[in-house]
């Protein structure tokens, strides 16, 4: 199971065992990570699962898809390396991933 580390807005680290095929957002829900509201449930339409991917992981995670890029344009606190975690699939490639929750 790929491990994902979330750093919440208060600086607290949570390690979650994610499952391949699920999304990083779902892993955060299961891990009860603070700041991941995921109001739309993974429909890429609310912007409440925003994370900043740690610099070393950005290439492995890749950039936003088309639907997501449209959402990222209209969300306030988007900075470099930000993704909507509902749009990041969990794969073996991202085992060990570290993301900061934008909150």
């Amino acid at each position, binding site marked *: 199971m790929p491990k994902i580390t979330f750093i919440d807005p208060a600086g607290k680290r949570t390690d979650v065992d994610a*499952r*391949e*095929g*699920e999304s990083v957002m*779902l892993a955060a*829900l*299961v891990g009860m990570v603070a700041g991941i509201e995921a109001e739309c449930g*993974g429909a890429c339409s609310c912007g409440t699962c925003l994370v900043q991917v740690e610099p070393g992981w950005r290439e492995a995670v890749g950039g936003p898809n088309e*639907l997501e890029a449209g959402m990222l344009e209209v969300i306030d606190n988007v900075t470099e390396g930000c993704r909507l975690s509902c749009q990041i699939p969990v794969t073996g490639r991202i085992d060990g991933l570290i993301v900061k929750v934008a909150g």
Partner: protein
Amino acid sequence: MQDVKSAGDLARAFDHMSEAQVEQPYQLYRRFRDECPIGRSENHGGFWFAMRYADVAAIARNFRVFSNTDGVAVPRQPSSPMYPLELDPPQHTEFKNALTPLFHISQAEALAPDVEAEVASVLKSALPTGKFDFAVLADHIPSLFALKVIGIDEADRPQLIEWVDFLTHGRDQPEKAAEVGALWAQYLSDMIARRRKEPKRDDVISALFETEVAGMGGLLTDDQVQRTLFVLIFGGLHTTRSAILESLFYIARHPETRAAMIANLENAAFWPLAVDEFIRYSTPTQILKRQVTCPIELHGQSLQEGDDIMICYGSANHDERQFASPDKVVLDRSPNAHVSFGMGPHRCIGQNLARVFLRSTLKQVLRLIPDYAVADDFVPHYQVGEARAMVSLPAAFAPRDA
């Protein structure tokens, strides 16, 4: 008379499908929230229920412990399993992601002018009479537009709606429910077979034919398309009807709400918060089921693997621990993380459409008959079922030229 029954007694007798409960759900919810946040009912084979916002939100999000694969309706829906609602991640995630673009906010918003025009056209013939039952409008708008987006031919819609009505509100007659369930399944299956051979159209059915979900075996089969249509049709009709009627009734009873809405009719910034507040307040889908996948303790109660738990969105949305003055419509309530569309992975895929249908209907009614009134002695009655919708809402207004 003082109610001497204990919360535990009330819990054991709790039946979300009883007429008395559906007519007036909120008083009992409140008692449960205070005294029995996780309770156990002996009805429908026995089930747990969760009443507080924090518990409802946590359960809805935690799909590993609380599964959808045993179905979400109690009593059981003959059309189960419906996709992707009655799947868990990861199958659910991939399936739903494939459908999401079809219900994107931009597609939904593009319908707004047509919805407003249709509301005006339905109201037109009533204008000279000064009388109108809003249930007609609340039936017509979601049926017309949701079924159109899905791709159900106009000629077939009335029959389809009749079946859906029965399966949503008439499942206390199991034999008839099974019969109706078989009829509409047959209709959908014939229609899907026919549409496969026809040229592509700009609707959800054509899009489903091209949808690939690796975890479900690739391109969707006829059966999988049918199981997807089940939930899209169930989800789209009575829920919106319920929100429209509940909102119009609240407005009729609260002059200050009506005045604020009329003053902001053309103020686009006003409507998003107002519409979501009406959706919170009305909570069309009051309660749905999850199945427990491993032993877990909640508020001192031990839930076992295989137990059913109903999560009560209606109670969560009126939980004073989460919302100040929950029984009031606060038009600019923010934040408003209500659970009317659910929460977590299974959040309603049609939420953008629902918002457009409700907003366009309320705006147009307030433009055309801002003086509508509901008789002082009118007491709403509700249909029992997955969607708590008023049976009728007769209104009167000053007659005017059409």
